[in-house]
């Protein structure tokens, strides 16, 4: 297998310029501890044989000790699956895969049964996955059992059936019904083809294998790329059910490639940087949080590492930010993708360039010292030409023994962004108020920008304010920080910010208040001054309050712009408002009760007067009918009128209009009838009297 893989990866020896920066960390102890966390079995056993296999394989690759109870439970489930006659090809496949690591014994009878069942599955397979599981199972049982006679009778036929699922773009379909093709299926198909070739009793036609090679090359045409040089395979997300994700897809393709390369004698002619890009992709994942992704990452890196010909070498950097103050040294580690040992080599610093500049290298080409205790290559002192700022350092690996050149793939020059920080000296800082015309200094004060300041100045609109200081890097050069601002804040919270310009090391800002009067909205009064100097490379960035200045500006004219409204304290604007107490309408002034009562009495007086007048006139009831029937009517008539008046009193006191109308309708009806009878009786009586 190693020799085959040699043919496949020998192209990686061709040194190709690697343009992108390569900052990937190899597998480390954090991976191991995460693996132990992720692959904890639920109540002692995993949910499925697939997961058992993944856990065992991951532990095997990372070199984590197998726990005996884990192995025991794995063996139990394996023997269960193997012994059961209802296990599908998929179950058998994963059981055998897990067994290849757990190494439990399978008895002869069971293995015979498995072989016959899998052979039957091969003949009866219709979809890609059926072929995969059955052929894969046969390959595994061939290694594990003592049976020598595991062959595929019609290997070429099976080969062709699997090949029938391929598409012209190098991808494979899952079955003849499903038109969707994917790179994941391509990886599975390649593994299956590799299994068929290894199980074939007679040689398979070489032309068939060549067509597979072409499919692989076409598959690699669809590879996708990240900016940092990582390459990966991904399928279109058509049906969420079938979509596997870039990690699973890429690792499936890589497994298929590795398996296929192991069985063919031919050279696959794949470009070296593609393989390196795949390694970068898997290292760039970091430490995955999902068990499946973790297994895929580790398994793929093991595929890349296990070849004995070209093992990619990775440069890793414990820190890419160096501090001149602490006298940090640049440390570089070299290892394989899984963090294993590398042969003796030297790391050379080929050049260092200032970020964004295309000038010549700032340092000469030099070798880094190898420290045996830490296993790192160290550049002890940063050259004097490296000042604070960001740089791109270019490294190269030089292997000591020529024979290692065939085994390891060291890539080409690696570019790494390195930031250097340091303490910036701030000197000669002073603030002065100058007279505008003559430029003579009215008042000048020294500032200590590192400590506290409480300067108090005053100026009017005819004067200027000058602030100046010097910035020097640790190496004595001039430094231009990202931020150098002077802020003036008025008592009413209106702020103005000015950028401090520089020429070389000297930073100076002159505020001519004559020109700034309108910008300041003619606000006179006390202004607080604040200076900000900051940069990513500056370890002592500062934001200091300098003090305050009393500004005397002229009065604002009519049309002057108003200062912008300052943000209101949100609680006062959005908080609860003052409670409104409802002011009820003041009740009208009523007259004193005695007056009202007096007038009530006075109103009764005319009624009394009427009654007395009636008596004086000599009213009598002589015309009241005497006969019983008319008398009843007459009585009822008067009672009826009285009842209606009483109803009106009730209406005023208690009832509402509708109730009153209802009762009135009722009483009115009676009254009309009765009234009609008595009045017609009276009319008849008086007519009789007149005629008589």
């Amino acid at each position, binding site marked *: 297998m190693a020799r085959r893989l040699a043919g496949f990866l020998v192209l990686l020896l061709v040194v190709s310029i690697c343009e992108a920066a390569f900052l990937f960390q190899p597998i480390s102890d954090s991976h191991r501890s995460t693996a132990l966390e992720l692959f904890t079995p639920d109540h002692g056993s995993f949910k499925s044989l697939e997961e058992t296999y993944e856990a065992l394989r991951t532990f095997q690759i990372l070199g984590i000790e197998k726990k005996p109870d884990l192995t025991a439970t794995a063996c139990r489930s394996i023997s269960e699956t193997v012994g059961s006659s209802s296990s599908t090809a998929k179950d058998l496949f994963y059981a055998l895969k897990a067994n290849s690591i757990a190494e439990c014994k399978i008895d002869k009878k069971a293995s015979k049964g498995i072989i016959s069942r899998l052979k039957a599955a091969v003949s009866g397979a219709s979809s890609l996955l059926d072929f995969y599981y059955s052929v894969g199972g046969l390959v595994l049982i061939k290694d594990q059992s003592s049976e020598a006679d595991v062959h595929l009778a019609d290997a070429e036929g099976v080969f062709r059936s699997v090949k029938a699922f391929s598409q012209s773009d190098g991808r494979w379909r899952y079955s003849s019904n499903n038109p969707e093709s994917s790179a994941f299926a391509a990886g599975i198909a390649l593994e299956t083809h590799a299994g068929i070739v290894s199980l074939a009793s007679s040689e398979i036609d070489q032309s068939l294998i060549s067509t597979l090679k072409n499919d692989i090359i076409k598959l690699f045409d669809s590879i996708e790329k990240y900016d940092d040089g990582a390459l990966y395979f991904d399928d279109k997300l058509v049906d969420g059910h079938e979509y596997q994700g870039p990690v699973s897809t890429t690792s499936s393709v890589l497994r298929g490639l590795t398996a296929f390369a192991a069985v063919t004698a031919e050279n696959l002619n794949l470009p070296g940087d593609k393989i390196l890009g795949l390694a970068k992709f898997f290292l760039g994942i970091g430490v995955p949080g999902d068990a499946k992704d973790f297994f895929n990452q580790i398994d793929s890196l093991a595929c890349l590492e296990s070849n004995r010909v070209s093992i990619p070498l990775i440069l890793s950097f414990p820190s890419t930010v160096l501090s001149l103050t602490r006298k940090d040294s640049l440390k570089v580690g070299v290892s394989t993708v899984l963090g294993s040992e590398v042969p003796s080599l030297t790391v050379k610093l080929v050049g260092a360039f200032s970020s964004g500049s295309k000038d010549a290298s700032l340092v000469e080409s030099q070798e880094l010292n190898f420290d045996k205790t830490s296993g790192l290559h160290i550049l002890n002192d940063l050259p004097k030409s490296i000042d604070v700022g960001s740089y791109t350092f270019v490294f190269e690996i030089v292997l000591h023994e020529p024979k290692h050149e065939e085994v390891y793939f060291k890539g080409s020059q690696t570019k790494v962004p390195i930031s250097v920080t340091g303490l910036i000296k701030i000197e000669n800082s002073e603030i002065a108020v100058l007279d505008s015309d003559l430029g003579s200094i009215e008042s000048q004060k020294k500032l200590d920008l590192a400590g506290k300041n409480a300067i108090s100045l005053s100026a009017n609109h005819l004067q200027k304010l000058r602030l100046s200081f010097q910035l020097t890097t640790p190496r004595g050069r001039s430094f231009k920080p990202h931020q150098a601002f002077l802020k003036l804040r008025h008592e009413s919270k209106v702020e103005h910010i000015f950028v401090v310009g520089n020429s070389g090391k000297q930073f100076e800002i002159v505020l001519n208040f004559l020109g700034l009067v309108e910008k300041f909205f003619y606000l006179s009064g006390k202004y607080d001054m604040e200076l900000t100097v900051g940069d990513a490379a500056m370890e002592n960035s500062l934001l200091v309050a300098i003090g305050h200045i009393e500004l005397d500006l002229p009065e604002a004219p009519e049309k002057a712009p108003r200062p912008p409204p300052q943000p209101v304290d949100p609680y006062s604007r959005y908080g609860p408002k003052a409670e409104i107490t409802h002011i009820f309408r003041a009740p009208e*002034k009523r007259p004193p009760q005695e007056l009202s009562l007096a007038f009530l009495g006075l109103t009764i007086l*005319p009624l009394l007067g*009427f009654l007395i*007048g009636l008596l004086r006139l000599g*009213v009598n009831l002589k015309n009241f009918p005497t006969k019983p029937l008319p008398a009843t009517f007459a009585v009822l008539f008067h009672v009826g009128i009285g009842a209606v008046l009483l109803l*009106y009193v009730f*209406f*005023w006191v208690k009832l509402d*209009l509708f109730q009153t109308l209802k009762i009135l309708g009722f009483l009115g009806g009676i009254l009309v009838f009765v009234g009609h009878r008595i009045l017609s009786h009276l*009319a008849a009586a008086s007519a009789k009297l007149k005629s008589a």
Partner: protein
Amino acid sequence: MGRTLSTKEDAGALFHSLRSAYAATPVNLKIIDLYVGFAIFTALIQVVYMAMVGSFPFNSFLSGVLSCVGTAVLAVCLRIQVNKENKEFKDLPPERAFADFVLCNLVLHLVIMNFLG
């Protein structure tokens, strides 16, 4: 002097003749006149009260005054219709007029009571 005296005498003579003429009116008409006087008086007292204390519950004042005035008006109508010397209403039996008077009064007082508040 004689003219002023005659005016005064004339006024006195006028008054006396009115009194004697009025004494000749039938009693039922006098009852009605008395009723009208009573109603107007009541109205006047209410107006005086309002003038003193202000018109705050104006609806009450209006309903009070209008009830008095309304009933007075209805009584005057009744008097016109019942008066035998009035040729226009010769054929209208006085009972009928009285029934109208009662009915209209009841309706008026319903409205007044509603407006009284």
